């Protein structure tokens, strides 16, 4: 049974290793600061005992004050799962570091988030629109797109 890991404990461990990275931990998710995202993700992937080597989905949700990017990580070896979130407060020019170097599964999903929300991923080798055509004006899945 894929168990969601205990987010409080993991949050505390992450806070020890990378001070200032964890913003909050919920019942099933950990919210991390966007600047420390790559280090935290690398730690989650490579540490024995956590071993989150399988990335399921990457998506974004537009709460009007901020945009939240959600990652779901699964460890095939230990049969555990974790939801990692990060927030982006800038609406004009949102930039978030890309995790493509760690998990190739994010390749198309980050391009799709750029297409539909406008969030640029720093470090992605090919940041272009995926589903809509070149020259489409706007980012449709934002809440203020009509």
């Amino acid at each position, binding site marked *: 049974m894929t168990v969601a890991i205990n987010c409080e404990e993991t949050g505390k461990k992450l806070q020890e290793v990378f001070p200032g990275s964890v913003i909050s931990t919920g019942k099933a998710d950990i919210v991390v600061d966007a600047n420390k995202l790559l280090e935290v993700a690398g730690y989650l992937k490579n540490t024995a005992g956590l071993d989150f080597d399988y990335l399921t989905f990457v998506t974004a949700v537009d709460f009007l004050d901020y945009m939240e990017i959600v990652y779901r990580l699964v460890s095939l070896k230990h049969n555990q799962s974790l939801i990692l979130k990060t927030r982006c407060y800038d609406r004009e020019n949102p930039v978030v570091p890309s995790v493509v170097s760690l998990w190739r599964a994010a390749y198309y999903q980050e391009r799709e988030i750029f297409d539909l929300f406008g969030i640029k991923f720093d470090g992605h080798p090919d940041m272009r629109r995926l589903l*809509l055509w070149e020259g489409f004006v706007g980012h449709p899945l934002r809440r203020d*797109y009509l």
Partner: protein
Amino acid sequence: MEIIRPPVFTPQEADLAEGQLINSFYAQCTSQIPDPDRWLEEKLQRNLLLTTVDTAIAWARQRSIFPLMFGLACCAFEMIGMAASRFDVSRFGMDIFRWSPRQADLMIVAGTVTWKMAPAIRMVYDQMPEPKWVIAMGACAVSGGTFRESYSVVPGINHILPVDVYIPGCPPRPEGLIYGITQLHAKMIKGTIDNPNLSLK
């Protein structure tokens, strides 16, 4: 207001009237009515069929349509189902689904059309030689369907191409698609050589 009712006969009166009609037929129809093509020779009568050139060519066109496989989404699978052995469309002569538009004369647009795909559809339509017909199959091709309000869906294929037959349904059953094709046959038989689509130009 006076309500006018038609006269109602009792069963005996109806029988008497019918008997009078049969008697009059028996008295009048004594000799044979000659055949309409009696002016032809006997041998030719058995081997010739007389019609107009337009009807003959329209009949040939309607009974051997080469459809173009243009399945875009879910309706494509009901189109393949129509071509499969249960609903067998090859009894209508539409056996071979052509893949190249240059060899086809009917384009069945089956599925949702998006603005990104629209130039490709127009290019394929332009590559088809005359005479050509278009069937819009499914709610999405007819009017945009469930996705009509979306930012990227064309609200009906007739924004891009002229359409001859619209087949509603989501997806339409293969029987529905065959009914649409028979409607197209009924339209084709009225066409002439130089105006097969019954258009005004």
